[in-house]
């Protein structure tokens, strides 16, 4: 809210956010500002201590164990396990698979992320219907989600692996380009896009640090720490959930599970994390 009435900024300053101008206007109260900033730093340090205290025990382990069970257990009309599911590195290869997703799959002719690929395997290998395979993509207390458990298991098998999402197929490049467009798409009653919160470095929402997903380091750190156990919910949440809930808070309608938009956005964000070590399931607020 930095602009004064009637004030027309020069061409040079115009496109910079109102932030700098406001800071100048607030120069008169630098002392009190300084004090506030200091207490802010102290808060950040203490929040960091909180996060470190949590890191010691991650309940996502419970989802991993259940997911491994689901992966190996025979189930569905075809009474088959998922052990021959091809996640991109060949049938049954789980280790490192998540670090190379989303990617183009020739057998379906489309780009798929982990969750849409798991859906595909549960349909083709186990004989589930599309409706069954997309039932309860996200859990809620005792209504547990098989998808979240499977994702916890598969992603944990990429821990320590460098992100290496391919853009070699034209459809992978198309998904990336579309995902990038969607990232900047403003809509809804609040005019929000992904970029509203995630295109500037060093910003916070309340006390929560916001990764700048247009900048390599932040994009890497953000993507490689999902999925995550969310202590605020007591649930292990996947990357599709992350997108689903961002859009809810953007005041958009509901992002459909395994939809083309979710895969395109995931392709954009996952690819931007290339080169970084994958380090999830993590634990977050």
């Amino acid at each position: 809210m930095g602009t004064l009435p009637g004030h027309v900024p020069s061409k040079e300053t115009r496109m910079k956010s109102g932030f700098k101008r406001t800071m100048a206007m607030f120069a008169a109260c630098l002392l009190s500002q300084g004090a506030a900033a200091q207490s802010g730093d102290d808060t950040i340090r203490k929040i960091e201590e909180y996060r470190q205290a949590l890191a010691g025990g991650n309940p996502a382990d419970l989802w991993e164990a259940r997911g491994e069970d689901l992966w190996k257990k025979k189930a569905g009309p075809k009474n088959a396990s998922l052990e021959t599911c091809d996640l991109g590195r060949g049938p049954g290869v789980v280790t490192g698979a998540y670090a190379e997703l989303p990617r183009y799959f020739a057998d379906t002719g489309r780009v798929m992320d982990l969750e849409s690929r798991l859906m595909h395997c549960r349909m083709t290998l186990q004989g589930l219907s599309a409706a069954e395979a997309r039932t309860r993509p996200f859990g809620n207390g005792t209504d547990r989600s098989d998808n979240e458990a499977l994702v916890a298991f598969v992603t944990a098998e990429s821990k320590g692996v460098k992100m290496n999402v391919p853009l070699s197929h034209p459809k992978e490049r198309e998904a990336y380009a579309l995902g990038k467009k969607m990232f900047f798409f403003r809509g809804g009653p609040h005019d929000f896009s992904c970029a509203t919160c995630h295109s500037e470095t060093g910003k916070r929402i309340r006390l929560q640090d916001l990764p700048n997903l247009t900048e390599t380091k932040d994009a890497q750190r953000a993507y490689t720490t999902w999925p995550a156990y969310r202590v605020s919910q007591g649930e292990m949440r996947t990357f599709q959930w992350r997108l689903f809930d961002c859009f809810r808070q953007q005041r958009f309608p509901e992002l459909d599970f395994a939809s083309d938009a979710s895969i395109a956005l995931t392709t954009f964000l996952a690819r931007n994390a290339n080169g970084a070590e994958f380090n999830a399931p993590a634990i977050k607020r």
Partner: protein
Amino acid sequence: MKSITRALLSVGALAFAAGCATVSDADLSRQAAEVLRASFKERGQAKLDRLNQDQPQAACSVEPDKKPPVAELERMEKAQQALIRYPADGKLLGDWREGEKIAQSGVGKQFSDSPAIPAGGNCYACHQITREEISFGTIGPPLLNYGKLRGNSDAMQRYTYGKIYNPQAFAACSNMPRFGHNSILTEQQIKHLTALLLDPASPVNK
């Protein structure tokens, strides 16, 4: 899946499929909007029409360095200024205590929110406002001492009310929601927020 197939029929997508990277930016934007529309479903109060962009939304859906030229931004601001509706009673200051509650509340307009519950402004999500609240965001500038620095003149009241009502009238492509223009907050709620920022008794100015 159908949407992608449909989108693939567009010229731009055919260029992609042919491995040629000369798809126009405008085509890509259209294609992205089309895929988005096919990927969302209405839920609660959030209908699919929320994906229909108005002029500023469409013009501002770009990377930060690709915003419209200055003359166009100024034209957009003027157009938005013409849409601000000031209170008929001419009073712009409400109760700062109510304003503080509105600034704290983050509910409203999400598909998970009941439309019966008044929306909040969620101002603390992006702004430091009072010294007492340590949980504040930094997407917007700090507003501590807002009124103390600027005074409480009629012109300042009018600017502040208008800025909350429609920030894009003063800074095109601002990140801040157009709280009045898009009926997120009521006239009375915006008056309360204006008081939170300008009332000498408000903790903002203490």
